């Protein structure tokens, strides 16, 4: 099908974009890479009065190191992230996750800000944001505010961004050197959204684990941090028994819904299986 009618704005500055969005009182949609919004328009599942297209706001595309974080302009393309030396060095988990995002011609258009603001619970970037305890910056009429990952995601496709706010920046803490990491996911076809995915990070000292991070995709309405599973590793180390215990705990911590792709029980099962796989691979990568 074809999109319904809408008014179209293509501002070249962020201030113009915020002003344009504010004029519609929630009836406008922000168009970033368009790889999710355009299909919704084509199906007429979304019928916004207006689109505010950020693709000509050049100031929103950058990768910058600052204060121990890597900061991404919201319009930074996934393909840019895939090849970024800064990302390879400081955020190898994000680099790995990017290879799972859609397909090559999706990633040339898709953006980090769009993926996170769209908040598809099966998407990889929200899981990485949760695992790394990142934050985003939102710009509205009243100025900027910083939102932590834990506060951002509300439910399916819903964040706590106000209707007149634009997500402008994504901030991820640089991962420690020598850290172990892995993103494991299961989908019926490569490039599909995950049925379930697990992002893992471990900092090891011998068999001890000084920090573990686990976050889910596709195992509930929002990415879930598996804190109680992380604690098992931080207490008991990185041996096989601890990994098994953490994987079992993961199945208890998620509360997935059933849908056409998978039952709730199957998703719960996958959360355990993928936690074990992700941890095993992450520990293999970790130095120290």
């Amino acid at each position, binding site marked *: 099908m074809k999109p319904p009618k809408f*008014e179209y704005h293509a501002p070249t500055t962020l201030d113009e974009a915020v002003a344009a969005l504010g004029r519609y009182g929630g009836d406008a949609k922000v168009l970033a890479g368009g790889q999710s919004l355009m299909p919704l328009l084509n199906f007429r599942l979304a019928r916004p009065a207006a689109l505010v297209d950020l693709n000509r706001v050049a100031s929103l595309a950058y990768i910058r190191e600052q204060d121990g974080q890597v900061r991404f302009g919201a319009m930074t393309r996934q393909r840019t992230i895939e090849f970024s030396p800064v990302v390879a060095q400081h955020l190898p988990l994000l680099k790995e996750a990017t290879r799972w995002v859609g397909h*090559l011609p999706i990633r040339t258009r898709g953006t980090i800000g769009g993926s996170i603001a769209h908040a598809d619970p099966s998407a990889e970037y929200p899981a990485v944001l949760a695992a790394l305890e990142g934050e985003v910056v939102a710009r509205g009429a009243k100025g900027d505010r910083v939102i932590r990952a834990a506060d951002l995601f509300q439910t399916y496709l819903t964040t706590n961004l106000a209707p007149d706010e634009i997500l402008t920046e994504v901030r991820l803490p640089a991962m420690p050197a020598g850290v172990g990491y892995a993103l494991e996911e299961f989908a019926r076809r490569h490039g599909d959204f995950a049925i379930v995915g697990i992002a893992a990070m471990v900092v090891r000292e011998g068999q001890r684990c000084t920090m573990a991070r686990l976050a889910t995709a596709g195992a509930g309405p929002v990415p879930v941090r598996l804190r109680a599973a992380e604690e098992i590793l931080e207490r008991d180390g990185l041996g096989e028994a601890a990994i098994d215990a953490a994987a079992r705990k993961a199945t208890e911590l998620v509360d997935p819904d059933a849908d056409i792709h998978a039952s709730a029980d199957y998703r719960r099962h996958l959360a355990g299986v993928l936690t074990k796989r992700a941890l095993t691979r992450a520990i293999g990568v970790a130095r120290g």
Partner: protein
Amino acid sequence: MVTVRLKVNGVAHEGRCEPRKLLVDFIREDLGLTGTHVGCEHGICGACTIMFNGEAARSCIMLAVQADGAELGTVEGLMRDGKLHPLQEAFREHHGLQCGFCTPGMLITALDLLRTNPSPSDREIREGISAVLCRCTGYQGIVNAVRAAAPILASGR
């Protein structure tokens, strides 16, 4: 209505359309370049894949107005001096197509894959072309074609 000025395969074009007009429809209906195919219209099948400022992108989930000022590449631009592009030649040689519906998208996607990864493994080729659905070939012929074309493109022919 909006005015869209852009280059396709190096040739300047201008057209007027509604902001909601999809780029693929603009290319086919307004510019008359029907080599780019419309399949699923929601960014899954990849038949509509074109080069947008040098990178492969799906033209059914972009608006024509977004291409104002852009340089596009389509399958029509691959032949040079009456000769098939080496990748097209490889598709013909290795039975990389049957009905041909997905082929424009396959070619453009494979070109961007080989541009960024000049000597891909078979696994990487499969991952790259997984962006485009083919219902005829079973993909093996396409993988063979891309593999065969890689060294030819890398040597700069």
